[in-house]
């Protein structure tokens, strides 16, 4: 796990076991949590040992491709799966072996799993009734919650009489009305069409601010994670590849996987010809160079480095630019007009294909077409070594 979160020093990565000076107990703490499934004599490892401290009140996303272990991790927090190893803590309390009905977290299921035989009101009241909350309080709390999710007046409808977005909000209200320590959302917007999904993203953020409950959000949609989260854990193959705020994850991908999974990324490689003042230079030709800053480890001459550059950080230029900047020469192989921006694929002299996004602003230069010779330039601060 690589924690690139600059403001994370106050939270020990290993959970509540850390020193006691700031007594910030995470809302959810995972300590070396692993899960193996056994079927037909084969052992499948879904989660390979995760340490995680989710802070109270934050919007936390677990992002990764299907099969990366994010849903299993969430089901272990909810109590539907028992970890093979490790500890799950809620507000510092060990709940590893507690069943779901004994945990103060609630879940919004992928396909909502509303009770089809109950009205909207009864669906939302279900948890309160199980906790033996007095009748008049149930009526009041359900009413308030339905107002927050904008479903007042639909109390007596059945789930199947509602649209997808409305069902989604019933599922949300049904979980939130219990004021859980954390709300777990398992790809909750997956079944909605794009427009509704975008509206619900904004809506979810608003509701989270309004109720102030910790949200743990599982998704494979990087845009969703980037727009909504306070922090993101990018997962792959049962481990957390990178943990940090969206900006860090996007701008400083720590591994090749993160760089490839989040947004479009250009992967470049070469050996360092010179190292001066914490900067390494890959000499491609007398005019062409890639400059890399030292990351976590020192740079040495002759070292093979891999680095990523985001397409929107690169500019198409007529010449190699100043000596302190990165510059590569190449031939445009593809031009795709995307509305607000244009995407250029450029085959560079290093052999790598590089994608460049350019805003279609009013001051845009003369158009570049297929087959044109261009220079790619970017500031060295946008070259991120990965490893």
């Amino acid at each position: 796990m690589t924690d690139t979160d600059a403001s994370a020093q106050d939270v020990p990565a290993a959970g509540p076991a850390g020193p006691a000076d700031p007594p910030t107990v995470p809302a959810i703490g995972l300590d070396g949590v692993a899960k193996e499934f056994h079927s037909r004599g084969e052992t499948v490892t879904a989660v390979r040992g995760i340490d995680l401290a989710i802070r109270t009140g934050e919007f936390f996303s677990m992002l990764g491709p299907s099969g990366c272990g994010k849903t299993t991790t969430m089901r272990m927090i909810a109590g539907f799966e028992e970890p093979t190893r490790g500890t799950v803590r809620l507000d510092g309390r060990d709940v590893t072996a507690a069943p779901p009905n004994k945990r103060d977290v609630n879940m919004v299921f992928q396909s909502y799993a509303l009770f089809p035989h109950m009205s909207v009101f009864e669906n939302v009241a279900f948890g309160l009734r199980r906790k033996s909350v007095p009748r008049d309080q149930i009526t009041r709390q359900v009413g308030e919650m339905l107002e927050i999710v904008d479903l007042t007046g639909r109390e007596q409808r059945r789930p199947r009489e509602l649209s997808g977005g409305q069902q989604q909000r019933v599922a949300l209200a049904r979980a939130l009305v219990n004021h859980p320590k954390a709300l777990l959302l398992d790809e909750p917007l997956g079944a909605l069409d794009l427009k509704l999904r975008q509206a619900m993203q904004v809506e979810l953020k608003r509701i989270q601010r309004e109720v102030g409950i910790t949200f743990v959000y599982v998704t494979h949609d990087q845009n969703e994670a980037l727009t909504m989260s306070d922090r993101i854990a990018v997962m792959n193959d049962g481990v957390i590849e990178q943990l940090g705020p969206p900006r860090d994850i996007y701008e400083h991908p720590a591994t090749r996987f993160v760089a490839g999974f989040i947004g479009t990324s250009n992967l470049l490689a070469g050996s360092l010809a010179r190292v001066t003042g914490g900067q390494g230079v890959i000499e491609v030709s007398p005019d062409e160079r890639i400059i890399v800053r030292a990351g976590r480890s020192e740079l040495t001459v002759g070292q093979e480095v891999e680095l990523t550059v985001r397409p929107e950080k690169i500019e198409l230029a007529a010449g190699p630019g100043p000596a302190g900047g990165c510059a590569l020469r190449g031939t445009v192989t593809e031009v795709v007009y995307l509305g607000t921006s244009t995407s250029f694929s450029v085959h560079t002299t290093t052999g790598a294909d590089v994608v460049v996004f350019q805003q279609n602003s009013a001051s845009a230069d003369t158009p570049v077409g297929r087959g044109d010779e261009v220079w790619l330039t970017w500031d060295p601060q946008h070259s991120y070594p990965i490893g």
Partner: protein
Amino acid sequence: MEQPVLADHPGGVTARRPRPRLGKALAPYLLSLPAGLWLLVLFLVPLVVMLSLSLQSCNTATGACVMTWHWGEFGQQLSLYHAQFITSFYFAGAATILDLIVSFPIAYWIAFHGGSKKNFFLLMLLVPFFVSFVIRTVVWEFILSDQGIILGTLKNAHLLPQNFHVLATGYAVVAGLAYNYLPFTALPLYVAIERIDKRVLDAAYDLYATRRQAFLRVILPLSVPGLFAAFLLTFVPALGDYLNQQILGGTSNTMIGTVIQNAFLVNLDYAGGSALSAVLLAIALVGIFAYARLLGSRTIEDYI
């Protein structure tokens, strides 16, 4: 959804579409023809014949019947055989309840835990029913006989008194009915439970329900359509059954099915038999509609 209705088929497209041919328009009717004929010839016609027979007077010697609109047959038959009607409802009801209690765990287990072997388990449930109805019931007579493999063994071990018997009692009839109609209960229940989204169970546990509450508040209400279908498919045929009573019930505990069978085949009292059949049909229909009003109609439409 509050979406503007888009004109999917602008006028021009509709106009250019070829006129539907006559065959196409008739297709639904043609397709329903076999089922319609079946119902007409094998259900509606016999039903009308039966109802009209109950109002005719028959010559027991020649079997010739004349329509006399003699309604007295109904009152007479009812006063003669009301006890057998009550016995039938009692036995069929007991067998149905027994079947529902036995089938529910089976159907639930196959639907929720059968995994990839669901079809195999369903087949196992049906295997005994590849053997003829009569043979199966006769085998039950053999199993339950006073000195048979169960009672005989228990008696030899002095666990039961020598004069203990099951055959020729109501228990034997109910057991036989319950055994013979079990698949009619288990299969519709299975279909209903299988259709339940397994995640609602997770949702119930997540919302603090205990296992018991999850079952009573979620699984059971969602199984109601299946329970209703299972009840109908078991209770109605069991009500008119006469074979179990004749083979396992001895001479007492006569069910109405036996009375009707005797009326037609032994006494050649067609009018009386028809009247009894009509009454049985009417009672069953009234009972089912009342039950559906009470429990079925509203809930069933909710799940579809």
